[in-house]
């Protein structure tokens, strides 16, 4: 029986704009789902469906309007900030803007050690092992500036940064959308490997947020389909993508371009 790692209950987030005639925008509406240890869950939806808002809520960047998020049975806002981020880490869409271009890449990775030294005695060795997990060569990365390496490599450095914390849960918010298709496959495979874990390390649970249905199908065991802030369908990837229930999912899948079929265009 798999352990429940994250539980989200009736989560709602509304943004209010304006003072006198306040206008409310509902970003996430009454979302509930669970994440089990050692699985990849995909959040799929079109732009504006609230995918990133859910990521930001889980990462505690914003406060929920209603509802609760439990990490290993505890409400996340009751967990001390530092403890929480040692277990839950994020990877974001734009690897280029996550770096300070005045500093070498080492600088960002070394900042991790100021925050946490969980089980780390030799910093250089920790860096080497984290970089080798993501398939990078230490000599190619350390000592370089961010503009000297490619976007795919930068994204992998950011994954290595997250791994230095030895997290149990990674929230990956559109991690591949700014990366070339040739390195995209490597990143997807890397997530699959991280989920499996190795003999020494436990597998990491991943919430994979994407608008790309093909990637979600490739990477995840379970999938959530979101529309305008609500979860319209959730279930095992194969079931949802082969026999969608909800009309929105059916429409979404019918519109998805694929090399395996052609649309009937008039």
């Amino acid at each position, binding site marked *: 029986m798999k352990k429940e790692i994250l539980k989200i209950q009736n989560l709602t987030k509304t943004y209010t704009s304006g003072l006198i005639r306040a206008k409310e925008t509902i970003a996430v509406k009454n979302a509930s789902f669970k994440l089990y240890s050692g699985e990849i869950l995909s959040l799929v939806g*079109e*732009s504006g469906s609230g995918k990133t808002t859910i990521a930001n809520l889980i990462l505690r960047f914003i406060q929920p309007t209603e509802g609760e998020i439990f990490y290993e049975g505890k409400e996340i806002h009751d967990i001390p900030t530092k403890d929480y981020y040692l277990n839950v880490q994020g990877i974001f869409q734009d690897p280029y803007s996550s770096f300070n271009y005045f500093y070498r890449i080492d600088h960002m990775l070394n900042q991790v050690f100021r925050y946490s030294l969980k089980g780390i005695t030799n910093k250089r060795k920790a860096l080497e092992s984290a970089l080798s997990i993501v398939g990078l060569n230490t000599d190619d990365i350390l000592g370089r500036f961010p503009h000297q390496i*490619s976007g*795919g*490599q930068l994204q992998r450095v950011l994954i290595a940064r997250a791994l230095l914390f030895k997290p149990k849960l990674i929230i990956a918010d559109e991690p591949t959308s700014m990366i*070339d*298709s*040739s*390195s*995209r*496959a*490597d*990143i*997807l*495979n890397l997530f699959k490997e991280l989920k499996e874990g190795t003999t020494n390390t436990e597998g990491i649970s991943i919430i994979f947020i994407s*608008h*790309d*249905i*093909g*990637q979600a*199908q*490739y*990477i995840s065991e379970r999938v959530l389909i979101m529309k305008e802030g609500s979860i319209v369908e959730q279930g095992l*990837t*194969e079931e949802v*993508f*082969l026999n969608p229930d909800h009309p929105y999912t059916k*429409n*979404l*899948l019918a*519109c*998805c*371009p*694929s*090399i*395996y*079929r*052609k*649309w009937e*265009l*008039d």
Partner: protein
Amino acid sequence: MTEEVIKIEDLKGYYRGSFGIVHAVDGVSLSVNKGDIMGIAGESGCGKTTLAELITGRPIKLLQHEGGQVYVNDLSMYGVDEEVIRKEILCKVMGYVPQASQNSLNPVKKIRNFILDAMRERVGTKPKNKEKVLNQVAEHFKKLGLEKSVMDKYPHELSGGMKQRVVIGISTLWNPLILILDEPTSALDVTTQQLLIETFTHLKKIGIVETILFISHDIPVLAQICNTCVIMYAGRIVEKASMDDIINNPQHPYTKMLMCSIACFNPDGSAETKLEGIPGIPPDLKSPPKGCRFYPRCSSRLEKCKENYPPFFISRTESIPVACWLYEEVGD
């Protein structure tokens, strides 16, 4: 009888600046036949957009035309005056929708005023009977699936797909028979993407455009609309084939590896095959390698690939032009 509408001969375009010389398009030859919908695919930085800029004959400032010719309906784009291209060819013979052009709509002007502006720029004078002209434009927009009320809106009131339709509508006002689309669907949701692609086929069906050059990095999207496709790598074309052959029967090692790296939705079940990325990164186009540009990343490279750039060989089995030494003997 096929008729060539665009013919490109050994086209070269380099970016020159304080950063050095970037060989963005370096010897591209291509011909597009009337009625084709041709896809141009490749990784970012392979020269797709630069090629489109060069075809329209008015490269942006840093980009310089270094050699080769582009013939549009037998008229040489680099042999005539810029004014002629501007007045006679762009929009009238060839429409060009640049990348992210939906963002070029003026935010403080209503769409109708923006259109009048664009028309004045094209025709030279303001149209005398505004209402009549705008009614004609509205008729045209209807064919693209836009309501007349769009004309009285500001750009921020429109959705991304509608904005894209507006700019496509403006570039097809004069019925250009050739339409060049640079990443028209990349910032849009899948449902909007499909509607837009339906619009393109509709435009072709009713005869507003005949030939489409569709630039995109998204091969599944290209597969829906294109009948032929060229694959570019590091400023050069590596393979020209029909869309079906590119997908089911790729010849060039790069095309093969590219097809293996795409995570594509499979409606018949989960994608069981493991994806494989392409190791390494594309070459720095400031100093491109002497031999085959894919040599450092290629898994089936030969000794001679390092020194000599391969010409196009025709693979005997498929009769597809492929720029790869592996097909040398087959072609003889």
